[in-house]
């Protein structure tokens, strides 16, 4: 996929690809250099240079490159359009085109309208092969030959159809299904059968598409082609609007793959990725056929599938488009809104499901009839209802049919689209209930009118995730501007080719609007989630270290941006022009290098700062505080020894653990001893410092009771090197628990504790980290004393926000001092009651620290989690005294920052400590126009002190495209990142606004985003249709999860502390974490295979089978849900007990049993834990057990106990909002 993507990217620039492929192309590049040189140049150059020198990553590609090159050549002449065009033309050529297709597909996915064109062509090729497979297709072809040609049509179709009408482009794909609708009922049937799946799955459409494309001139044509063929009129409309979206979707969707497979394999090595996918689809196809009617659909599929699709979205869509008033349109409307569209996205995949859906065919009629009503109903009734409504009328009809046909066996879970994917899998056969759902959607309206939309019909996160996984088999190279990376749920390898890895930076939009008007219109937040010190997987190279000598890193004279690939060298290399501010700066003599004929420096590939997206500079003394090289940092452990802490076993636990932990202090070179010094303090109402100087026979305790004016009683001997003082330290750690074993002191202080650590660091003149282990509300007389202010009555009132504000101003000032000293505070809380985390957390949050909370801590039950967290927290790589600055190219500006840090001014993000788990979300606003040519550049520079006391500068560069068309924006955004931004934005808001206002704002902005899309990008269709952009089709479901979170909508059992805790936790999460936090991963673990994880299911109770066992993880929690009627064998394998009732609900770890299943399950659990920054305690939840309530809280697609809407309800609500906006 990646490759494909790249190519597409390349294609725009034309040359890059060549570059990648082979040096030989370089010349060509030379030709192009002018235009691209600044940007592409490097990239292309890179590769050429790279392979030889060492940025190796791409070496493997050459072969492909060659192939690609030719293509590119072709394309190049044409420019963007051309490139694609050629492909189109190419398709016919077969092999050549095919490769292209592949690329195009991927590209298409990635990008824009044009791709569709290309895609279309390629697909055709692919399609053809498929078509073959799909006999049906051929059959259908006749009518739509060309369209089908677009087999990609599947995709396209979906795009067109669904995308346009229903959901995102993809939905359009569902559209294919719709296509039929276009054709009117009769056509529908035909369409379904023919166009529908056959076309989809099968390349056939592609073939047809090829033909079609030509005719339709416009990209959209392709999609339309499928349907268009049949219903020209409708198609046309589609074409215009749909093409772009649809294509993308399509590309993403299955179709392309298949086509690719067929072709790609032949020509390209690259094909590999596509193949897999293709396989998927094919598989599904074949399988479905085999087992079920679904298969028939294939053969018959055309009809079936189409119906299916049609049933859902397609029909409606088409109907809507052409003649909304008409029944078809109405149908579409009804369907689309519900699931279909979403499914459509999947559409490509759906095809199969679609096929199954065939039943819809029958529905068609209903649809027609239905449509109108639905709409009518829609408005009046709630979203859901509206959806239902439309379907309603038809629904009944449809449903029945659908169910019969579809249900035959497919589980509802598998959405149409998913269904396919899964369909292929064994289980599917029956399950397809999903289809029924579809039917339901369409039909549902009617029959279940009162009921809901069929959950299977609405966009499924699982499907999207799985699609993306399937798509991302190639390493992701960052060299191409504006290219969205794979989803966070996908495992992929990254090759740095000039932009920062998505592990460091993820953007909400990879195509930024050129103007602020556009940005405002779309309401899509422009933000980047930056995780500057992210840990890279072992197979990726850590950032290179660059040393520019005593003068320090070379920077732009004006904006001070650091040397990076965006700097263009001019005047033979004597000066360089800043890519950010365009200022021209002299190149220092020692840095001078000649340029080659392309304008690139000859040493470009020798220097990471000229060729990579991420690297580090060695900072000189000018970059240090007080112009003094920093001291190695220190870790200070501050342990609460009040009654509660001692009694719960905490104190002895910590002391014991510290003995081993001290060997694990972070170090840069694993072979060296850590240079981090340590110090120890215990406290209750007073503080006890310990002198552990190596020369002492026994540690000495220094009690400071003057907490009102904290100070450090000693310097020498407090912070020590572990190895030198080991004996004394161990003796101390042995004695601490004894010394306080009989304590009766229950009061604690908190402010002075941090002050103490801070003062110690000040005295030692170093940065460092405090580990504070604290148990209770600090009520002892001291600065920062707090009172219990938890008042449930305030929840839901305007005063609720005050509970999120710190109780006293003391901690804010303290935090400021901490930051100034580089004192990072990590807080481990063990509360038995309210501790006012909102206030206690101020310092950790402002200093880049972490908060860990273990409510009702008991050593026995919670030690594993705590100790693992502690271990990780101590060990992890961390930088101190950090300052982060985000520079951007003229036109945009970083305006807002979210995360754990402190800001003294509006630009510098100050972090006393910055560890590898902390992410900062940065929001950008326009302050001028951006140009499509140069795109938008950003450079994030983080100056920090490493754990060995070296001053470093880490630079992340990121370039994104700029667009003048809204459609481009919608096509290249990342919902997960947007959600990350939304969550942080909203959670911060609760401290200043009533929670309800925050929720409303979120819903409103989201509605505006979608409405804008609907208004400006989607093809005109009935207002009753819910059309979601392909990239954002999950926005509603995720947003709902945010809205239902404990912070924004607390249940009765959620304490204020819990909410404050989550609030701060989320504020520094990266996209991966927010994703799984808001949409937990739910894995069925009845059948486990080594090497791969089972496919997740959606977070809904309906998806749980009584006979199943499921694993759910949120990044914070881990549940093992056991159904009431699980087979004995399974129970034996997991728990070693044959009886459900004998399972101990208090288990926190699974028994170690010697059977492959148990081993694998525990492996999976371990691997989950390893992925997260915090240790997840395992909770075993038995169905019907009391603890199931907690578990259900995480089934986020369902209605929540606290009143949160179910996914379906929310989607309807969203739809209503959008419609209101549109009207």
């Amino acid at each position: 996929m990646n490759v494909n993507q790249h190519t597409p990217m390349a294609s725009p620039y034309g040359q890059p690809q060549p570059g990648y492929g082979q040096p030989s192309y370089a010349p060509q590049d030379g030709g192009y250099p002018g235009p691209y040189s600044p940007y592409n140049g490097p990239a292309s150059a890179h590769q050429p240079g790279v392979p030889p020198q060492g940025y190796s990553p791409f070496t493997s590609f050459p072969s492909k490159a060659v192939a690609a090159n030719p293509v590119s050549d072709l394309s190049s002449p044409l420019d963007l359009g051309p490139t694609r065009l050629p492909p189109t033309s190419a398709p016919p050529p077969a092999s050549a085109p095919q490769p292209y297709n592949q690329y195009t597909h991927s590209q298409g996915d990635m990008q824009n309208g044009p791709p569709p064109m290309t895609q279309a062509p390629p697909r055709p090729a692919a399609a053809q092969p498929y078509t073959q497979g799909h006999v049906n297709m051929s059959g259908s072809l006749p009518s739509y030959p060309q369209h089908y040609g677009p087999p990609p049509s599947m995709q396209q179709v979906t795009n067109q159809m669904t995308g346009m009408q229903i959901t995102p482009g993809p939905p359009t794909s569902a559209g294919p299904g719709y296509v039929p609708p276009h054709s009117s009922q009769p056509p529908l049937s035909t369409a379904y059968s023919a166009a529908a799946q056959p076309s989809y799955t099968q390349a056939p459409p592609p073939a047809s598409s090829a033909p079609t494309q030509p005719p339709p001139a416009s990209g959209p044509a392709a999609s339309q082609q499928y349907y268009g063929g049949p219903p020209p009129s409708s198609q046309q409309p589609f074409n215009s609007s749909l093409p772009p979206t649809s294509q993308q979707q399509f590309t993403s969707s299955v179709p392309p793959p298949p086509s690719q497979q067929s072709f790609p394999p032949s020509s390209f090595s690259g094909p590999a990725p596509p193949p897999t996918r293709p396989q998927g689809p094919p598989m599904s196809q074949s399988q479905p056929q085999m087992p079920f009617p679904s298969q028939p659909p294939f053969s018959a599929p055309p009809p079936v599938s189409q119906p299916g699709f049609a049933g859902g979205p397609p029909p409606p869509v088409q109907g809507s488009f052409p003649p909304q008033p008409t029944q078809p349109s109405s149908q579409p409307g009804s369907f689309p809104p519900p699931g279909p569209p979403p499914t459509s996205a999947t559409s490509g995949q759906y095809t199969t499901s679609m096929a199954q859906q065939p039943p819809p065919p029958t529905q068609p009629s209903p649809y027609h009839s239905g449509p109108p009503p639905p709409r009518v109903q829609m408005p009046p009734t709630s979203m859901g209802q509206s959806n239902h409504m439309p379907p309603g009328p038809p629904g009944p009809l449809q449903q029945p049919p659908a169910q019969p046909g579809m249900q035959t066996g497919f589980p509802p879970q598998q959405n149409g689209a998913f269904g396919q994917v899964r369909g292929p899998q064994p289980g599917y056969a029956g399950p397809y209930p999903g289809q029924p759902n579809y039917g339901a959607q369409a039909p549902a309206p009617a029959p279940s009118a009162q009921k809901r939309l069929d959950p299977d019909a609405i966009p499924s996160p699982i499907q999207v995730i799985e699609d993306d996984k399937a798509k991302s088999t190639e390493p992701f190279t960052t060299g191409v501007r504006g290219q969205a990376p794979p989803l966070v749920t996908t495992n992929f390898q990254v090759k740095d080719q000039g932009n920062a890895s998505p592990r460091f930076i993820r953007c909400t939009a990879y195509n930024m609007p050129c103007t602020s008007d556009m940005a405002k219109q779309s309401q899509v937040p422009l933000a980047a989630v930056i995780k500057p010190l992210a840990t890279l997987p072992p197979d990726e190279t850590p950032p290179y270290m660059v040393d520019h000598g005593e003068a320090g890193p070379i920077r732009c004279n004006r904006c001070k941006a650091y040397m990076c690939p965006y700097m263009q060298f001019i005047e033979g290399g004597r000066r360089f022009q800043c890519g950010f501010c365009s200022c021209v700066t002299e190149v220092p003599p020692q840095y001078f290098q000649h340029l080659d004929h392309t304008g690139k420096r000859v040493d470009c590939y020798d220097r990471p700062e000229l060729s990579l997206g991420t690297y580090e500079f060695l900072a000189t003394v000018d970059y240090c505080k007080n112009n003094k090289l920093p001291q190695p940092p220190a870790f200070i452990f501050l342990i609460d020894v009040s009654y509660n802490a001692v009694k719960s076993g905490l104190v002895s636990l910590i002391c014991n653990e510290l003995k081993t932990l001290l060997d694990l202090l972070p170090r840069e070179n694993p072979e060296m001893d850590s240079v981090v010094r340590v110090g120890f303090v215990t406290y209750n109402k007073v503080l006890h410092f310990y002198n552990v100087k190596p020369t002492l026979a026994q540690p000495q305790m220094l009690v400071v009771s003057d907490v009102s004016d904290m100070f450090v009683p000693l310097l020498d001997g407090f912070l020590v090197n572990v190895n030198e003082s080991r004996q004394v330290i161990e003796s101390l750690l042995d004695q601490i628990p004894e010394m306080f074993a009989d304590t009766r002191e229950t009061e604690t202080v908190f402010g002075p504790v941090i002050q103490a650590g801070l003062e110690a660091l000040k005295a030692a003149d170093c940065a460092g980290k405090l580990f504070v282990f604290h148990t209770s509300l600090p009520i002892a007389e001291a600065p920062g004393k707090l009172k219990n202010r938890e008042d449930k009555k305030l929840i839901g009132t305007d005063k609720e926000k005050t509970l999120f504000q710190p109780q006293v101003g003391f901690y804010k000032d303290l935090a400021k001092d901490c930051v100034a000293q580089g004192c990072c505070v990590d807080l481990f809380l063990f509360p038995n009651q309210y501790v006012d985390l909102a206030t206690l957390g101020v310092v950790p949050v402002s200093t880049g620290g972490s908060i860990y909370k273990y409510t009702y801590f008991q050593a026995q039950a919670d030690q594993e989690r705590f100790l693992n967290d502690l271990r990780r927290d101590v060990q992890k790589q961390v930088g101190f005294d950090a300052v982060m600055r985000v520079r951007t190219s003229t036109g945009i500006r970083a305006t807002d920052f979210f995360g754990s840090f402190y800001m003294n001014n509006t630009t510098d993000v100050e972090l006393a400590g910055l560890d590898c788990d902390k992410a900062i979300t940065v929001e950008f606003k326009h302050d001028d126009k951006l140009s499509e040519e140069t795109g938008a550049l950003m450079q994030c520079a983080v100056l920090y002190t490493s754990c060995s006391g070296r001053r470093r500068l880490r630079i992340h560069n990121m370039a994104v495209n700029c667009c003048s068309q809204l459609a481009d924006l919608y096509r290249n955004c990342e919902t997960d990142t947007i959600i990350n931004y939304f969550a942080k934005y909203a959670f911060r808001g609760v401290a200043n606004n009533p929670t309800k206002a925050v929720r409303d704002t979120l819903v409103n902005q989201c509605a505006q985003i979608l409405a804008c899309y609907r208004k400006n990008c989607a093809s005109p269709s009935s207002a009753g249709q819910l059309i979601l952009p392909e990239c954002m089709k999950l926005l509603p479901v995720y947003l709902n999860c945010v809205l239902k979170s404990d912070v924004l909508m607390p249940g009765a059992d959620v304490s204020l502390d819990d909410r404050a805790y989550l609030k701060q936790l989320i504020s520094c999460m990266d996209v991966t974490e927010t994703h799984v936090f808001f949409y937990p991963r739910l894995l069925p673990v009845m059948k486990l295979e080594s090497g791969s994880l089972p496919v997740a299911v959606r977070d809904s109770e309906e998806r749980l089978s009584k006979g199943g066992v499921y694993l759910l993880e949120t990044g914070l929690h881990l549940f093992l849900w056991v159904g009431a009627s699980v087979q004995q064998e399974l129970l034996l394998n997991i728990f070693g007990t044959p009886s459900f009732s004998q399972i101990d609900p208090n288990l926190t770890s699974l028994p170690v049993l010697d059977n492959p299943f148990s081993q694998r399950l525990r492996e999976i659990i371990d691997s989950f834990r390893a992925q997260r920054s915090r240790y997840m305690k395992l909770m075993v939840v038995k169905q019907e057990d009391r603890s199931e309530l907690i578990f259900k809280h995480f089934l986020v697609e369902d209605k929540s106990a606290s009143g949160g809407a179910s996914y379906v309800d929310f989607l309807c609500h969203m739809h209503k909002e959008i419609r209101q906006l549109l009207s």
Partner: protein
Amino acid sequence: MSTYQEFIQQNEDRDGVRFSWNLWPSSRLEATRLVVPVSCLFTPLKEMPNLPPVQYEPVLCSRANCKAVLNPLCQVDFRAKIWACNFCFQRNPFPPSYAGISEVNQPAELMPQFSTIEYIVQRGPSAPLIFLYVVDTCLEEEDLQALKESLQMSLSLLPPNALVGLITFGRMVQVHELTCEGIAKSYVFRGTKDLSSKQIQEMLGLAKPAAPGQQGRPVAPQDAAASCRFLQPVHRVDMNLTDLLGELQRDPWPVPQGKRPLRSTGVALSVAVGLLEGAFPNTGARVMLFIGGPPTQGPGMVVGDELKTPIRSWHDIQKDNARHLKKATKYYEALANRSAVNGHSIDIYACALDQTGLLEMKCLSNLTGGHIVMGDSFNTSLFKQTFQRVFSKDYNGDFRMAFGGVLEVKTTRELKVSGAIGPCVSLHSKGSSVSENEMGIGGTTQWKLCGLDPSTTLGVYFEVVNQHNAPVPQGGRGAVQFVTQYQHSNTQRRIRVTTIARNWADVQSQIQHIESSFDQEAAAVLMARLGVFRAESEEGPDVLRWLDRQLIRLCQKFGQFNKDDPTSFRLSESLSLYPQFMFHLRRSPFLQVFNNSPDESSYYRHHFVRQDLTQSLIMIQPILYSYSFHGPPEPVLLDSSSILPDRILLMDTFFQLVIYHGETIAQWRKAGYQEMAEYENFKQLLQAPLDDAQEILQTRFPMPRYIDTEHGGSQARFLLSKVNPSQTHNNLYAWGQETGAPILTDDVSLQVFMDHLKKLAVSSST
């Protein structure tokens, strides 16, 4: 009792009292005309080997505002078993225990030889002695090591049941807990913050005895000592404390170039005082402060930590240029008063080459009866032996120290108390015998002496209030009773009562008697004390003028002369030395600050106002002995003419012991004659002053600075600055013969001084 000399000596031996006048002028007017007030030097705890304490309590006069103690001067009616108070004339019955009293069976207190008697009070719990070491850790390694050793050594000198505590300070103040095993625990206070006593006690966990100790340890209510973890019996924590002292580190905070170490003496003392205040009020305790430099931060700071700012000098003080002086002084005064109220005394052991802020801190010791010891380093025998001598024992094996003394002075009605000068504070006990005319610490008849030793001597000043027209009957006697209650070092409470009486004399008719009853030594010391007391608050020249005027008036009163004829001036034997004392007093460091640092002045004055008469006289006029081949050692004049080449001089100024080898002797010594057998006598000559010096060194507290020098040696300045400059560079040849060493000074010599005095005394214009 043949002469007054003998009488005086006898009185001193028996009662520890030296009066300026041993006949008292019978009226106020006449008394003032005598210039030198009726006053006395009183040594409350004077060692009296032949005075065994009695094991019962004194019998008191029953009049509420009298409460005088039964004494030999009382009239007793043995038959009626009644005695009459000689102060208020109240008639009191004897208590039942005196039932067997008769003329032949008298209790000790009625016998004349027991004019001083000591009672042992049996009531009340006996409190252990308390020693709290407050140790500066901002010392050079060598110094600290020496100090640690001294402290460890001192543990063995303490009575085993004494409570001991340790506070160390540098930049921070640490109060060490002595009971803990394993981890050594201490409470730390920031050195820059002034804390109230209550805060300190709270922070030390002493505030709430109600709440059982933090450690949940049961607290025996009567065992107050156990409740305080910071003060523990020596026998129990001996080892712990020795280890603790052994592990004492120098203050670990880095001292940047050009800075003084940060030394929180003020807070350390505040903590020490606060700790004792909370734990052991009204119990004898001794805070021993060891400092190696001036307080440089926090309350009580004397100088900033910038080395470029030197510590205040007299010059700065006169120019009102000593920034911290007033504040610091006020701070330490407040501390001293608090400490005095609770009966705790504070010693200061200051060892440094530069000043350590004694000027500001002197009141700590002055008001609480503590010692001040000043040396150059803790690693000197001066400090080591002095410190050791603090714990010296008397013939009974008891420590020569007493605590929590209260001195009350009762007088017959013709006499009132003007005040006292010495290491004491007023207890503000108003009564009928309080004079309105204050001298020294007045306005009271009771003073507190928190720390006492056998040599502690107060100057007590009286005023004769009898009106001129109400003459005292011939043969009438005035009486004074000193009642001293104190805590003996063996933890007993004791009361010592001294009752003395003197005859009244009519000045008009008995001026000769009065003159011959004049104790010029005592008078000199008493006047000097007044002068020194004034010098603390007045400008030096004013005090000198005042002294001069007093001297001239005295000479006018008692001198025999023809008006305006200086040559005719004569003084009787009983006054003959007085002018000379005054001459040396004027030159003494007690009144002259030139060439002395403020710290030195404070140090000298401190000792001057607490030593007994003999020592005080030595301080005023040092003693000079001469050793030569011409005869046995002899005292010689403190005069430059005594400095001869063939003599060895031994000068004792109390603070210094100087052995000066004359020019010839020095040359001989350098030539090594003493090593030759044939010059054995020379060797002996050299040895003689050393032996004598040793004798003095052995007994004196504080140990004097020992100086061995020779003609032309730089240290010879100590001698040259003391001797009367009879020969200077100005008159060297005027005297014709070269018999001494000329002194390079512009100071007037005794001769010139006397000439002036005579001139002024005989002048009719004054």
